[in-house]
């Protein structure tokens, strides 16, 4: 059997790339090490009857053009609404944000009438910022150091695009790119828990605190999903995020792609600076003129190929590429729903996110622990209960709770041990119990995942959820390294398509799509 293209890894980006390649008539093979595809987007029955989106849990950035091009709704994409965010406060009150704008405004006005008004204008500005950045998500990064016509054209159109923003918006964008989320939000709002909750989305997946410069930009990613809001592509995938991966896999297969699980690639084979195929852990070799790595940059450049084949600067740049996983995940099987003291009993808040971000200081202290090599004793958490939205996730009347936690540094003082993992799990549960005291007695099963677990299971280096931090110096034409942001590598026929390439992490699929389109363009198809 010969193939036109082999994809290494069956993460959602590689599956997207495979689907586009197969759709263009390429004989395509996906090789996934694990027994299931999806990487960081997988659903597993961790405890009998209880299914979890083990790692990533909400969909917000999946590109609409991919949904359309691959006809994903016909293959099983079904995104269910996740409508609210409620933040329990330390004084027993709460701050809620609901699907209905009037309700949200009135709720915020309860805490600060000024902020309630500012929120409208802030939302409009962020809409404009997201609109300004959106075209970039669909763009192959030009290389500013190159004089190739395509790069120059790319740079020109980028320059033109920014000029078209007008100076006010350009300045706002500049602030967003350079400031800390705390400072940026301070310019707009006064109610501290609001700022804390908004800034939390700026620290996700990074080793930054809310007062670290550069954290404001990640805020924008949050709003990016919102401009596509009418498209209703924000929320829970039915069956968990693994069902998204399976949906994309079904689309890829419908175009003729072949997908093999339990097939770990050991090496990418090259000859005279050209890719020739891959060698599996089993010793099997498969030939193909195109090999695309869906793994993160460290594995793509330093493990799958011999770094000796690569230019020294690139090896150096990849060596400096920052991973520094800082997030953990705790998955709980529950016998009953949590009962939050701020909103007792059953209510619509349980169908949305519960954010443990009561104050800016709370977040900053959580970060302080991590800065000095400890996990946060009182961590930031984003909590959802998917079984309330998608009853199939748990046995009737029982529930699954997904807790995304920050910070859990990869490089913990003295290293992670089983005991420390459990201590981290205890810290998470103890913190939740402060707001929902019945949680401890409701727990039927608990899965605790810290960065080394994420690394071991998904292959994401240092457990970084975005395959490399979404920091400004690691974005766009820097992702993953200057000169190599256009999905190519110095080895002819060897390509990269994972979240470590532009536009980066999250269940977005954009890296996979852009890579496939570049491959097809190069082949002149």
């Amino acid at each position, binding site marked *: 059997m010969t193939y036109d293209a082999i994809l290494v890894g069956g993460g959602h980006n590689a599956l997207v790339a495979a689907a586009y390649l197969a759709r263009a008539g390429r004989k395509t093979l996906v090789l996934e090490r694990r027994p299931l595809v999806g990487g960081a987007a997988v659903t597993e029955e961790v405890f009998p009857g209880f299914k979890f989106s083990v790692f990533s849990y909400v969909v917000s950035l999946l590109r609409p053009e991919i949904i359309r091009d691959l006809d994903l709704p016909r293959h099983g994409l*079904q995104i269910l*609404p996740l409508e609210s965010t409620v933040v329990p406060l330390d004084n027993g009150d709460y701050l809620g944000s609901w*699907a*209905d704008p009037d309700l949200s405004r009135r709720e915020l006005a309860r805490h600060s009438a000024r902020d309630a008004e500012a929120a409208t204008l802030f939302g409009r500005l962020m809409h404009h910022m997201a609109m300004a950045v959106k075209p970039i998500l669909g763009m192959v990064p030009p290389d500013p150091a190159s004089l190739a016509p395509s790069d120059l054209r790319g740079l020109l159109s980028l320059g033109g695009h920014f000029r078209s923003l007008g100076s006010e918006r350009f300045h706002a964008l500049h602030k967003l790119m350079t400031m800390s989320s705390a400072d940026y939000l301070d310019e707009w709002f006064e109610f501290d828990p609001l700022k804390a909750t908004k800034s939390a989305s700026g620290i996700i997946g990074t080793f930054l605190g809310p007062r670290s410069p550069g954290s404001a930009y990640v805020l924008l990613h949050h709003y990016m999903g919102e401009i596509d809001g*009418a498209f*209703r*592509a924000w929320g829970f995938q039915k069956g968990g995020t693994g069902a998204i991966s399976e949906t994309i896999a079904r689309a890829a297969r419908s175009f003729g792609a072949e997908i093999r699980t339990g097939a770990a690639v050991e090496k990418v084979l090259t000859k005279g600076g050209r890719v020739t195929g891959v060698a599996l852990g089993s010793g099997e070799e498969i030939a193909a003129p195109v090999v695309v790595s869906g793994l993160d940059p460290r594995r793509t450049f330093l493990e799958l190929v011999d770094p000796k084949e690569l230019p020294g600067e690139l090896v150096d740049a990849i060596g400096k590429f920052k991973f520094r996983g800082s997030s953990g995940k705790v998955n709980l099987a529950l016998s009953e729903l949590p009962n939050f003291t701020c909103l007792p009993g059953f209510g619509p808040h349980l169908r949305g996110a519960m954010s443990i971000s009561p104050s800016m200081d709370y977040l900053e202290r959580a970060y302080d622990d991590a800065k000095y090599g400890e996990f946060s004793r009182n961590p930031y958490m984003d909590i959802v209960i998917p079984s309330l939205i998608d*009853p199939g996730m748990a046995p009737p*009347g029982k529930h699954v709770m997904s807790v995304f936690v920050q910070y859990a540094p990869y490089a913990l003082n003295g290293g992670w041990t089983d005991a420390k993992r459990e201590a981290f799990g205890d810290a998470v549960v103890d913190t939740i119990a402060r707001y929902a005291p019945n949680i401890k007695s409701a727990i039927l099963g608990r899965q605790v995942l810290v960065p080394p677990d994420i690394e071991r299971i998904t292959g994401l280096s240092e457990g970084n959820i975005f395959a490399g931090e979404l920091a400004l110096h690691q974005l766009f034409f820097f992702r993953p390294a200057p000169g190599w942001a256009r999905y190519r590598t110095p080895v002819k026929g060897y390509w990269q398509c994972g979240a470590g390439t532009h536009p980066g992490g999250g269940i977005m699929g954009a890296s996979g799509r852009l890579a496939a389109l570049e491959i097809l363009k190069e082949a002149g198809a």
Partner: protein
Amino acid sequence: MLRTTPFHPRTAPLVQGQAWRRWAGYSVASAYELVHDREYAAVRNAAALFDVSPLHKYLISGRDAARLLDRMVTRDLTKCAVGQVMYTPWCDARGKVVDDGTISRLSDRVFRLTSAEPNLRWLSMNGAGMEVAIEEVSERLGALALQGPLSRTILQQLTPADLGALKYFRFIETTLRDIPVAISRTGYTGDLGYEIWVDAARAVPLWDALVEAGMPYGITPAGIWALDLARIEAGLVMLDVDYHSAHHALIEAQTSSPLELSLDWTVSWTKGPFNGQRPLRAEKARGPAWRFVGLAVDWGSLEGLYGEVGLPPQLPTVAWRTSTPVYKDGRQIGYASSGCWSPLLKQYLALAHLQAPHFGAGTSVEMEVTVEHRRRRARATVHAGPFFDPERKRT
């Protein structure tokens, strides 16, 4: 005052935004929650509970009951077995649709007919001289529709009947937690679903039983806005929205034949005489001048139109019901009568009446869209049949 349905004591406290809608002289919820996304999602994800009591309902009994109905409607009612339900339109003498609804055969000589409009007079006129009794039971009978992939699981908790054995468009008389009901495997969503018919006096306990048993399965009371999205995805025609009853039409052009509504499958060409038979045969021979089809609006085209004014596409969250011109090569060839953004299919859909010869599946047309107060045209493709038709509906 508008009338309220027998479920009103339960539904009224749930309506958060006072979003009520008129339906056949009753008020029913447009939406229970302030944003109806969840109500719609329940139809495709779990189970949505609709109050459909305002439907007109008639009991038709007697030796000639079958004969009366068979003469009135376009389907062959002599083939309707006891326990079967048939969806059918009925026409006037010119072969133009008066109304559409379902007919359930309760026994050899007893049928129940549901309709959107009052039909008592029409039934009596058609039954003149026959041995038949016609009784309106609209108020006596409450009706709920439980629609969605988990509807069977929920109902099965409450009834001794084997719902796995209940086929599509069949019904049974049974009990739901001791409440006598008829359950039909029917609905207006194009999904797995059931309609439950109950004595109005037992309506409230029935609602309570369903909600209690359905809780662990995500049962969600849902209003007409959610229903409207689902029925457009299912490509189901709606009286007074997509077409007008021949009895209300002021001019010939306002009438539609079953063939023009793409309901050919409901017209039997082999049955005995029925209202409109002759003109329908003639129409079949020459081919209908209109067809009722789906339109899928091209996203790129929409994005382009909105992009010109610096906006992302603005999509409707509620289905619209405004007649909207459809063009081909610059000439108007028809009109869309309802449309919506499908949250499930991620497509902008419309249902439209198109003139021959432009209604073939795959035909590229243009639909008017209003972009920032200006009339523009977006590309769209003709689609035949339902946009969404899951296997679970039938199996």
